[in-house]
């Protein structure tokens, strides 16, 4: 009985298949005071086209909201097939002030790459 139930759920979720962003992109994050940046790089040209449309400043701001991020700014870097996101006030004080285990935004790139996304259709 249980098996059947699981199968049904799988069939439903296939319609909205999600993959982690890391399958189509790579990233690196770092700190500046109480802010951080996350640069996201497409693994393929098709992925870059997808990123430009779907990884908006608003999407990223919503994603990082639980960490208290301010107004996210996005810069396009087409020559590197990259987007650079500035995440203001995301480090709970940053540097030596923040009490968090990640006071310097070292994990933010990895965290963004876990974002579930619809795979781009090239």
């Amino acid at each position, binding site marked *: 009985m249980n098996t059947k139930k699981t199968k049904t759920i799988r069939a439903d979720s296939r319609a909205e298949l999600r993959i982690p962003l890391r399958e189509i992109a*790579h990233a*690196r994050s770092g700190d500046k005071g109480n802010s951080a940046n996350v640069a996201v790089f497409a693994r393929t040209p098709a992925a870059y086209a997808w990123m430009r449309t779907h990884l908006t400043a608003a999407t990223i701001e919503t994603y990082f909201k639980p960490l208290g991020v301010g107004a996210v700014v996005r810069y396009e870097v087409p020559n590197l097939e990259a987007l650079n996101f500035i995440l203001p006030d995301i480090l709970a004080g940053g540097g*030596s002030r923040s*009490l968090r*285990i990640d006071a310097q935004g070292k994990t933010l790139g990895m*965290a963004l790459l876990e974002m579930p996304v619809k795979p781009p259709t090239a």
Partner: protein
Amino acid sequence: MSRPLKIANASGFWGDQPDAAARLVAAQPDLDFLTLDYLAEVSLSIMAIVRAKDPTAGYARDFVEVLRSLVPFYQAGGKMKIVTNAGGLDPASCARACAEVLQAAQLPQLKIFTVTGDDVLPLLHPAKSRFHLISENDKGRTGGEDGRFSNLDTAAPLASVAPRLVTANAYLGSAPIAEALRAGADIVITGRVADPSLTVGPCLAHFGWKPTDYDRIAGATVAGHLIECGTQATGGFSTDWLDLPDNDNLGFPIVEVSADGSCVVTKPAGTGGAVTLPIVKEQLLYEIGDPGSYLSPDVTVSFLTLKVEAVGENRVRVSGATGRAPTDSYKVSATYRDGYKAHGLITIFGHDAVRKARHAGDGILRRLQERGCTYRESLIECLGTGASVRGLVSRMSDTQLVETVLRVSVAADTKEPVERFTKEIAPLVTCGPQGVTGYATGRPKVLPIFGYWPCLISKSFVKPIVARESRE
């Protein structure tokens, strides 16, 4: 035309691998320059604490040991020059310690120069001046009460933290480094300079660029930016780190800078890691704001015109940087005292580990509150649950975890309640749930908190000083 200048980095931060420099020169003896970066945003405040106990210790002493490790290289006739910001708050003392090493090694011919003038604490807060450098006239115009030195990020006025300032240092540029090299320096020891300027200085001196050769200087700035974090340019910190070849032995990075300012990023043969397009791209945008307008004291750089191409195994060419005139301000990194903090860690294993950990953490804070300790901030984290980015990523529910590391943190304006907190972690072994372990590291340390205060200062107020080390 001049051949490319080979510039390497052997330290990305204060605490990087101590044998990196010796291994680099062993693998790549034909380097022209070695750069070593020791100064992160709040490093100078740590040096200020050290200096308070020992007035001659306000610099990165690790560098003296690095120089000692290079003695055999120089005794064998090595020619590589060194540029480092290891001088911290006290480049003169650092230079003196280095001179003693060279003297003892019978290498007195190596000339050490210092670059100072970055300390602007007296200008931000006259009462903090250790040297009384400024006139009575100037005193009325400093301290930030007229809106100057306000916080670049928050726009808060300096007056709110001025009495608590510990350090204030302007990020100097490449000009004084180039001046020292043109005067014959083999080793240049600076205080605070912009990290890429450690690389730009040698290029200015070697290629004879004019200060207005903005595109070339932009190229060298990009080269310096790429290597300033050491092995982050050769695969360290990269997304696909696990797939790197020989990733327990990453090579430190080398840039071969050409006369036009373009460079090839590479690493010594026989070292681990990789110099690939994805890795170089990641490091290009590391800690970058607006990629069309990267501000350095030497030049304002656009990264939007850069071209990156793989030109060989572990060789990536970066060209096309464009530059324009720098701003008329230096960025200042100031720090101020902002209370104390401590973090306690203990491991909890067993069913309901996360619930137990959270309960135990709450219990510690409640007990302390009942004993009259108050904190301006506290935090309970259960590591293993995605706590680094709490609320963003969770693959499994907390109830499935059989183990977590409880991390409890507190901050207060005074030391006493934080000190008291550090004594409440280990008792969990007997008063907490069964399965508490990992307490053998002793009580947590009470750490001073330094607030970070980025601001701007007009270049006209700052005078870089180049001096040859001479022992009295």
